[in-house]
């Protein structure tokens, strides 16, 4: 009986043991299934996640491309920036190490505090910058003592340098830290210490200059310590930008402008539009910006009434004054209102209805024709024809000659100026255009605003046979040439253009010409041109009666002095526009500068060594660099 029961119980046990065994087998199957699900079905997904876990892709900042002049003279380069770094975990006490270091290089209490703060926030195996911009001597001193300074290291970064400082500051611009608003798809911009172009060519060609970031794939462990390098793609240096500028001419022009209080100038090629020099004075040293400018210095630059930060040659907008007279004259000629034989008497004033408009010369010029009106800058002559032409035809001619709108110049700082017409006035003020305003406009006063760059472009178009050249300053971006320089021809009568040129010749080269004292006596280099004096403040009747002259006014109320010129006269190549802010008369303040610049331009003659396409061999990169000190050679 007992045995039976025992057997019975045994059977039950065996059955139940079998159930347990089956359960175990089932669970093992579940586990194996789950494993297969994770490793096979989901394997790819988890592999990607694992790689993401493990690999830290580090971007390696590329070197910024160089900016050079037409002969390869560097305008913007990367200098070595020597830095001292410290890795906290490798030191025997960070503070002690810094104290030791302060005996070797200059390190004040503030610096030490800053390093300690930064070190606290970051992982102890990450290097912390102690000082940058160290001299070679300082870095050598640290290197010599490096064995006594565990955890201290040195490295070489790059810092932008502008060897020509003030002279090229407005063209080249400068680089600075990336603002939040400037961050685009390029992840490179998020690199610590990355600099992007803020103004000038540095800004305009920033994307080309940046280059391509390298990628270093680092294997990292869970706390982010780099274990080893897996892959490394070298960074690509940014494109080299070759400018059309001639460094020597640029430097010379800057020095020449520095005899004034505030001035700007443009020297360009009448045939191609290539800009050889583009100057604005006063200027600033862009190197101050790359190494961190002080707030006081920044304030000082901002508040300077001569606007050193502004590139006045392209962003300064001035009434063109008498330099505009060629536009009025050509509009009159093209409209058939005057001819080469048209002559009028200038009594010193012109009456329109009850309004009297004065010529600059009291008593008048007597009988003047087109050439002599230009040569002596007779206002009355232009007053007379302006009424007949009307503002719209003047404005149309101004636009055709490149005034009153942006010329598509590479630098984004370029301003459009303003060329008013009837529509403009209606749109702007809701008023009808007054005939008197046409008279004022005919001599480049009133609403008209032009930039020196536009005035130079206008002069180019007048003297090159009527080709619509536009100014350009970048010859090559990498190996790609800048602009297509086959310019369309303006439909202008060559005889009319010759007549204008003749007038401009007389301005400088006959005794009665307003710029006779600035003539170039060497006939091979002789220049033609036109003076301009732009009124800033109207001289009131009372002041005129009191005999107050413009020179007696405060600086900021004095006239702007302008001059546009070209040389040589028989085969114009170089065009120059000069504006001296509040400089007084164009003939006394601007023409002498233009004379010097045109002499230098012809001596340097940068146009005879044109930029060549590097792809065609014998490119600019292979041209011998001109040695400094060749001025006047």
């Amino acid at each position: 009986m007992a045995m039976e029961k025992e057997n019975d119980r045994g059977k039950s046990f065996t059955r139940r043991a079998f159930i347990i065994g089956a359960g175990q087998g089932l669970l093992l199957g579940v586990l194996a299934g789950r494993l297969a699900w994770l490793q096979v079905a989901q394997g790819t997904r988890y592999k990607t996640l694992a790689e993401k876990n493990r690999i830290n892709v580090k971007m390696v900042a590329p070197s910024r491309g160089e900016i050079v002049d037409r002969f390869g003279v560097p305008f913007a380069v990367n200098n070595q920036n020597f830095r001292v770094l410290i890795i906290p975990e490798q030191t025997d006490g960070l503070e002690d190490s810094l104290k030791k270091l302060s005996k070797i290089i200059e390190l004040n209490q503030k610096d030490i505090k800053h390093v300690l703060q930064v070190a606290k926030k970051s992982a102890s195996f990450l290097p912390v910058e102690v000082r940058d911009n160290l001299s070679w001597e300082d870095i050598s001193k640290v290197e010599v003592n490096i064995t006594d300074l565990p955890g201290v290291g040195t490295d070489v970064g790059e810092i932008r340098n502008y060897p020509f400082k003030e002279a090229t500051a407005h063209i080249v611009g400068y680089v600075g830290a990336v603002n939040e608003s400037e961050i685009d798809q390029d992840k490179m911009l998020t690199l610590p210490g990355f600099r992007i172009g803020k103004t000038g060519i540095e800004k305009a060609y920033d994307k080309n200059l940046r280059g391509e970031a390298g990628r270093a794939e680092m294997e990292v462990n869970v706390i982010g310590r780099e274990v080893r390098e897996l892959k490394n793609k070298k960074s690509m240096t940014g494109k080299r930008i070759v400018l059309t500028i001639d460094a020597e001419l640029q430097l010379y022009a800057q020095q020449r402008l520095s005899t004034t209080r505030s001035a700007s100038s443009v020297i360009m090629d009448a045939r191609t539009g290539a800009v050889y020099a583009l100057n604005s004075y006063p200027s600033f040293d862009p190197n101050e910006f790359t190494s961190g400018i002080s707030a006081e210095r920044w304030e000082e630059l901002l508040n300077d009434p001569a606007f050193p930060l502004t590139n006045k040659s392209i962003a300064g907008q001035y009434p063109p004054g008498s330099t505009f007279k060629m536009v009025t004259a050509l509009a009159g000629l093209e409209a058939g209102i005057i001819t080469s034989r048209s002559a009028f008497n200038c009594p010193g004033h012109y009456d329109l209805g009850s309004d009297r408009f004065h010529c600059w010369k009291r008593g008048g010029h007597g009988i003047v024709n087109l050439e002599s009106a230009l040569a002596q800058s007779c206002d009355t002559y232009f007053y007379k024809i302006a009424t007949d032409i009307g503002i719209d035809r003047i404005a149309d001619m101004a636009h055709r000659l490149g005034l009153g709108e942006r010329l598509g110049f590479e630098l984004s700082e370029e301003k459009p100026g303003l060329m008013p017409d009837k529509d403009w006035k209606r749109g702007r003020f809701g008023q009808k255009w007054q005939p008197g305003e046409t008279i004022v406009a005919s001599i480049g006063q009133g609403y008209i605003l032009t930039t020196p760059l536009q005035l130079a472009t206008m002069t180019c178009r007048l003297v090159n046979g009527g080709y619509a050249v536009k100014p350009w300053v970048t010859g090559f971006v990498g190996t790609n040439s800048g602009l297509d320089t086959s310019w369309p021809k303006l439909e202008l009568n060559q005889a009319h253009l010759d007549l204008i040129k003749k007038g401009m010749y007389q301005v400088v080269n006959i005794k009665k010409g307003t710029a006779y004292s600035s003539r170039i006596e060497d006939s091979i280099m002789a220049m033609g041109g036109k003076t301009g004096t732009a009124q800033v403040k109207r001289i009131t009747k009372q002041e005129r009666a009191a005999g107050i002259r413009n020179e007696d006014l405060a600086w900021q109320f004095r006239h702007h002095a302008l001059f546009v010129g070209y040389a040589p006269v028989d085969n114009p190549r170089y065009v120059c526009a000069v504006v001296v802010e509040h400089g007084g008369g164009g003939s006394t303040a601007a023409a002498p500068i233009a004379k010097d610049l045109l002499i230098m331009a012809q001596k340097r003659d940068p146009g005879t060594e044109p930029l060549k396409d590097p792809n065609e061999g014998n490119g600019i990169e292979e041209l011998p660099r001109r040695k400094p000190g060749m001025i006047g050679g």
Partner: protein
Amino acid sequence: MANGIKLQDESSIIYKLTHLNWTFIVLTVVMACIGFSALYSAGGGNMDPWASRQLTRFLIGLVALLIVAMVDIRWWYKLAYPIYFIGLFLLVIVEIMGQVGMGAQRWINLGFIQLQPSELMKIAVVLALAKYFHAATRDDMASFRFLLPAAILILAPVSLVLLQPDLGTSLMIIMAGIIMVFLAGAPILYFIIAGGIAAAAAPIGWMFMHDYQKQRVLTFLNPESDPLGSGYHIIQSKIALGSGGVEGKGFLDGTQSRLNFLPEKQTDFIFTLWAEEWGLIGGVFLLLIAGLIFYYGIRISLKCRHAFGSLMALGLTVNYSLYVFINIAMVMGLIPVVGAPLPLVSYGGTSMLAILISFGLIQCCNVHRDAKLPRM
């Protein structure tokens, strides 16, 4: 009869050695070797700090296994209750003066070893229940009054372990205990009733859970909700496992574990490391070895001619299988992270010793399968 001679033979060491189940021992060694190789890898291709110490412990444990197996099973039968009460006493000691570690009091520092009484208790409960049910009749098993002391035998240590608090271990003791009761022949209806009560009591249990335990359950349900907190373990473990693929990344080439993305890689998450480096093939191989251990454990249990041995061998096999299931299911994200090691593979002294001793007891059943045990 030749009984006398046979008894003599049966007590000799040679007899006992030949009557060990050597396949079972080989499987044990294979499983331990998986552990050594995984720990070697976890140490970055070094015997230190884990593999060498694990090896020493295993060798000590193997000797303990043999000794336990040689001891006459009647001794284990006699000592079943004393061992149980010693275990219970040690749990109380832990509760009173145990050291605080991992937010739970779990071990006593004996100087040379961190003794974790709850690990030993798992064996003791099986032993005590095997003894209690040894002579039980069918009527006994249907009697509520007979089953009540068995329930107390289970719940007394469970409540002490819960106090530590160690949810994983207490659940394992309960499960092993229930399976013992099931094997001993309690009516199926009781389990259905008990299951119903447990389901009803679950919300109350939730209320008594520690925050970190609740967090683990919640995180388990949605690990991505807390990728850097509690969910981190599961996510990283799944990434490491999944990235292993079929063939694995190769020995010593498990990137996730080597780079420390995998937490506790040498202890609870050792299976992940193994499966990352050896892939599905290695993982299934490990499961296969475990399955074979279960199989031989059950076989020994079934061949045993006395209820005590059968119940003990199967109970201990179940105990081991619970470790395996809980650990591997945990690292694969099938169940919450409960902090259970994979015995013989995970780095850790107590769990390895406990399992080797329990394997010794299973072997003891094999050696003494025909022993005459008193019927009370």
